[in-house]
């Protein structure tokens, strides 16, 4: 078997069409995951009765099981729940009308939420307690103190880990093939299946992932530089 360098390029071009799918899964799961993660982190930090235990169970269960398993559980479990509810309440909605990528969105958001919960929690804990007290001492409410004083600093502290989460979700999105979503990786398989040049096709896929990852890292570095300017004593 010979390497066919020109087919790497051919495959590369054909894979470009799948980039939006990969990116949309990444963006949706990271955004929803960030929201879920922030809420769970706060529930745990503030030890909200009952909810904090649920949050802890969620985080340990999700982090203790593979991402592919989450996808399969959602894919097979969610329709059962939805259809049962639909029957109960007489909705016309049926689980079959959920697009395949919808399962990826939901399940990967749940996955990302658990991982990002830890990232957000570490970020908040990195903020000195005196910051919150100073905010309260001038009469800011708890919400104002968190939103204006603690979160911005927590975010700055968490940025490197958040960037890692984004990269993790980008790479993890390849698992969506299991529910027939055609992301970059799945597209590579399709491209290669006509001529069996799998190596070239996957190599092209790898190059695209690498490029996207480098872009994310660059963006994160830029944001870090701006957001963290105060740490190095930069002037606005």
């Amino acid at each position, binding site marked *: 078997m010979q390497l066919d360098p020109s087919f790497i390029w051919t495959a590369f071009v054909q894979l470009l069409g799948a980039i939006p799918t990969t990116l949309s899964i990444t963006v949706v799961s990271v955004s929803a995951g960030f929201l879920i993660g922030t809420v769970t982190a706060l529930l745990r930090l503030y030890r909200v009765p009952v909810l904090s235990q649920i949050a802890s169970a969620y985080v340990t269960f999700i982090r203790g099981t593979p991402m592919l398993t989450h996808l399969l559980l959602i894919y097979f479990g969610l329709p059962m729940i939805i259809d049962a509810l639909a029957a109960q309440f007489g909705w016309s909605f049926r689980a079959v009308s959920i697009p395949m990528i919808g399962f990826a969105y939901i399940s990967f958001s749940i996955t990302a939420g658990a991982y990002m919960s830890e990232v957000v929690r570490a970020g908040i804990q990195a903020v000195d307690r005196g910051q919150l007290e100073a905010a309260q*001492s001038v009469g800011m409410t708890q919400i104002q103190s968190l939103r204006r004083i603690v979160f911005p600093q927590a975010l700055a502290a968490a940025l490197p880990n958040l960037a890692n989460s984004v990269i993790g979700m980008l790479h993890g999105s390849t698992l969506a093939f299991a529910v027939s979503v055609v992301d970059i990786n799945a597209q590579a398989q399709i491209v290669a299946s006509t001529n069996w040049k799998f190596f070239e096709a996957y190599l092209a896929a790898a190059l695209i992932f690498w490029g996207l990852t480098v872009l994310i890292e660059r963006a994160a570095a830029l944001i870090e530089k701006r957001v963290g300017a105060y740490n190095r004593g930069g002037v606005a």
Partner: protein
Amino acid sequence: MIQLSKISKSFGRNPVLRDISLNVGTGEVVVILGASGSGKTTLLRCINYLEKPGSGEIAVGDLRVDCSRARRSDILRLRRKTAMVFQQYNLFRHKTALENVMEALLVVKKLPLAEARRRSVELLEKVGLGAKLDAYPSRLSGGQQQRVGIARALALEPEVILFDEPTSALDPELVGEVLEVIRAIAKEGITMIVVTHEMGFARDVANRVVFMDGGLIVEEGTPDEVFQRPREERTKQFLRRITPEANYSI
């Protein structure tokens, strides 16, 4: 006018404040002295409600808060009438000097931006930092940070400013500039409660000195009374330890 009545506070089984009562008149400067662990910080934090007292009553101006059943709105109002200058400055690290002072004016007092800015610049000029408006705390010396902290405390025009060892984290050569600023605002008639080990400062500025030990106010009086003619043995011991000048003189 500040009235503390029977403030008690325990951490677990450890009683830290025992029925502390203290009145501070408008414009009065009260200095609190006491050994480490005697409860000075805890008392200030209770007045600002950063620590929840177990029982007692705090009255500031026309606001009375019964600590055993304080509502959230009482606590907010109390905090808006009191301000704290922290030992570790606790400036908002992600905000410039100017933004640190403006923050409460914008968020708590809801002043328009221009007005908040004008007043904050004025305050920072007053503490000698007119040239550092846009500097982040990490770019400021300890003395400069603490002066921003003082400007931030002044911004809300509180009825009392609480200082918790405002100079004890500073390099010795920076202590003077901060004490100078505190002295100046004391002269303006701002009510202050100051925990400090700066005896010279206490002598000059305090109207009254309060000595705490074991969560109790053991002795109080004018600086002269407490420093020159302490009645209590515990006060005498403390003063001997804290003013060792005599030991150095040859």
